[in-house]
């Protein structure tokens, strides 16, 4: 029983973590950094039996501190993330993804794209297969950024079109982006999940290039496939698409049926009501 209060490495670090936690919750970044400095030596000890090891802790805590601390720069942040990538191979893609998110939040689209491409080319034995989901996400986000580029090119083209210019180079680039984006977006929306933004972008692409059948099919899948989680937005997208396509009132009504069930207070219910009243039902 005398060992209960024995102060040892493990207990000391547990206490350290709780101080970090308090500091983070109170947004005391300096204090959090102070305690994190003392915590990092946990990396030299093995925690394989624990659920969350020190490398993950340090990654998550360090990210928070560096993101919010007034004296921290983006350069430091990036440097830190690169270090974290080397720390845990099982987490590599996850860290890459989060890094990309932060870059996007900071408006660094190009850097984000570079990181995504780099991550996509990563191979590490059986880990590649194990981290397959993260890889798909990385590809999806790259597809998303490709879509953004496509969109930019499209707008340039439209402007030039108004001025009477026909810019072949821009057009070629645009088509290139479309191909790259379409491939990746198509892949991710096959997996059951909530992919609103990916679906929207993909449908936009398909509509632009005139592939309405495919677009319809994609939206149907997204809304009606029972493997996908219930998602009101799926039905909204489908409805909006059908409306754009000028479909019959009957199809429009049937598209909103499930939305009516899951979100009775949705603003589209006004339209739904109106259409129902106009029809004989």
């Amino acid at each position: 029983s005398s060992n209960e209060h024995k102060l040892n490495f493990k207990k000391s670090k547990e206490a350290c973590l709780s101080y970090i936690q308090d500091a983070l919750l109170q947004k005391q970044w300096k204090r959090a950094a102070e305690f994190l400095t003392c915590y990092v030596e946990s990396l030299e000890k093995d925690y394989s039996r624990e659920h969350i090891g020190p490398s993950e802790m340090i990654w998550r805590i360090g990210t928070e501190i560096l993101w919010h601390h007034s004296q921290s720069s983006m350069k430091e942040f990036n440097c830190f993330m690169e270090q974290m990538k080397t720390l845990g191979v099982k987490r590599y893609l996850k860290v890459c993804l989060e890094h990309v998110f932060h870059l996007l939040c900071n408006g660094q689209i190009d850097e984000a794209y570079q990181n995504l491409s780099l991550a996509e080319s990563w191979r590490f034995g059986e880990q590649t297969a194990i981290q397959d989901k993260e890889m798909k996400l990385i590809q999806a986000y790259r597809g998303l950024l490709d879509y953004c580029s496509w969109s930019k090119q499209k707008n340039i083209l439209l402007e030039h079109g108004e001025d009477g210019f026909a810019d072949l180079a821009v057009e070629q680039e645009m088509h290139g982006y479309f191909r790259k984006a379409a491939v990746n977006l198509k892949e991710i929306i096959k997996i059951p999940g909530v992919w609103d933004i990916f679906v929207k972008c993909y449908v936009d692409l398909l509509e632009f290039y005139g592939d309405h059948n495919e677009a319809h099919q994609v939206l149907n899948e997204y809304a009606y496939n029972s493997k996908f989680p219930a998602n009101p937005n799926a039905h909204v997208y489908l409805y909006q698409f059908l409306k754009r396509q000028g479909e019959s009132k009957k199809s429009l009504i049937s598209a909103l049926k499930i939305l009516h069930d899951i979100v009775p207070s949705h603003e589209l219910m006004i339209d739904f009501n109106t259409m129902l009243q106009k029809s004989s039902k």
Partner: protein
Amino acid sequence: RDFNERCAQCSEVNWGLTDGGRFYCRSCHNVTERTREVVNTDFITNSRVQTISKALKKQEKTDGDCEWYICEGFQLILKKQVEALEALGVCPQMKDEILCNFWRCYLQKSKQAYCKRPAGETVKALSVCESSTDVDSDPERPSLLHLLSLSESEGDLQTDCSFASSVSKVSESTSVYSGSVDGSLYLMKNQKEKLRMTMPMTLSFCYMALLWVREPITLSELLRFVVEGHIPYLNVFQHFPEKMKLCGLDLKIFCVESWPVYEEVFNKMHELAAFLDLPRFPDITESCFLHPDMLCMKYLMEANLPDELHNWTCRVVKKIGIGEVDFLTLMPGNKSTRKVKYDVLAAAVIVVVLKLLFLLDDHYEWLLSEFAEERNKNNTEGGPYFEFKKWYEVVKHSLDVEQKKLDEERAKYLWRCEKPLFYSVKNKSKVLKRRQMVVNLQNQFGKLSGSVQRAKKPNPSSFQLSWSEENTDGSCFHGHSLKGILQEKRGLLTAMNPDYWLCTVKLCNEKLCGHLAHYREVEFPQSYHFVLGLFSFLLRIQPSYIHDEVCMIEHKLFNKKLCKKLKYNTVLRK
């Protein structure tokens, strides 16, 4: 000192010991091949000197390493520790005469040196290249994993397993289990018989020497100095000379990652004293620092309690006979007497005195305090009466502040040292990479910590809380009077408080359940908890230890009454 031969070079007799244990002439620095030899001392009789020189001879391997034994490592550690104690003001004889002799005696008794090696026991380190087809000469040869688990230090399973597997793949015939020659053998030895040396035991040695010399350092103070870094303990192996390579199983022995516990060091010290067949220690008399009267005075001051209480502690001490020389002086090997924890005992005496005078039942002490407050308001002549309430507020505030500081320090403690440690050559590069990453991260986040730099090691001080009479805010209670709570009866000053509650009616059998009483399982008054908590902080031990001593004292004090079976209150239950 004891070596009396003339130096071959300069004919002087002025010897010192090198780190490796060889004699060197202090006049001309001639190093001999002779190692520490024992001449007559009080404790070592008729020992045949075994020249360890054969084994200690520094065989220069290709990379400049030398062969070294585990006990050499501990010897170095002890040396460093006692030097630190010297720097703290301990008398120099402790190093050269006392501790040195204790250590030599230990080496002899545990048959690690200064004796004829028992027949059959060879210092053959476990070699690695035993393939499965070899017939083992020793069918009980333990596996490496078994050895790793024997050590007391906390290891990580992953490292242990990876070490074990990496070692088995090496095909050299030299031992790679440890940097030392006998690392594996050391862990294998039967602990019970020979009192195997451990890191906490180094402190037991120190404490034993301190007690012998009757230095004014209690065990709790010693341990506090260790934690505060004034005495090397954690990572002291990084000061081993370069040639003594530390790896593998050595780490299990020398790298500890926890602070030693009072009980552990205390008990080991007594075991050690008995093991070494030491005679009765020098007497602890009334003028000794370790005598309860002296320690009580110190603790009363530190606890900001009135000096007048000292009369009471002395009375209690006298009444139950714990001030007697025979009670206080250590007699090794005597199993019948209870071992004395001087610091805990003194603290417990104060607690008992407080209970006698203030009852500490969460009512009476506040009542008394109110009376004192009234009196102090109306009558400012003749010095203030002690008010329990004010004292509580002042001390609690300081205690909370210090406790908070201490908790933060504990959370910020850095355990690893700069010297990278690896179990085997195989994971050396991995370890070094990790270390580099840790250093980088420390730099990065250290800069973001703001102006808060790591506080320097506080100067070692005997008092953790100090109160000055010069403070005009009245936060020092040393000079306050107890008049309000005392009365005169038949010429004697007694407490106005007529009652007393016992912490426990019956004492447990310490040998069976480890404690005399069980602090956690009963609800005691908050004031009692507070007072225990105060001394628990000062001594850096669990309150239950102080509680045990309190129970012991109470039972001695009220012995007669207990025998007659008390009529009134025993333990308060809410």
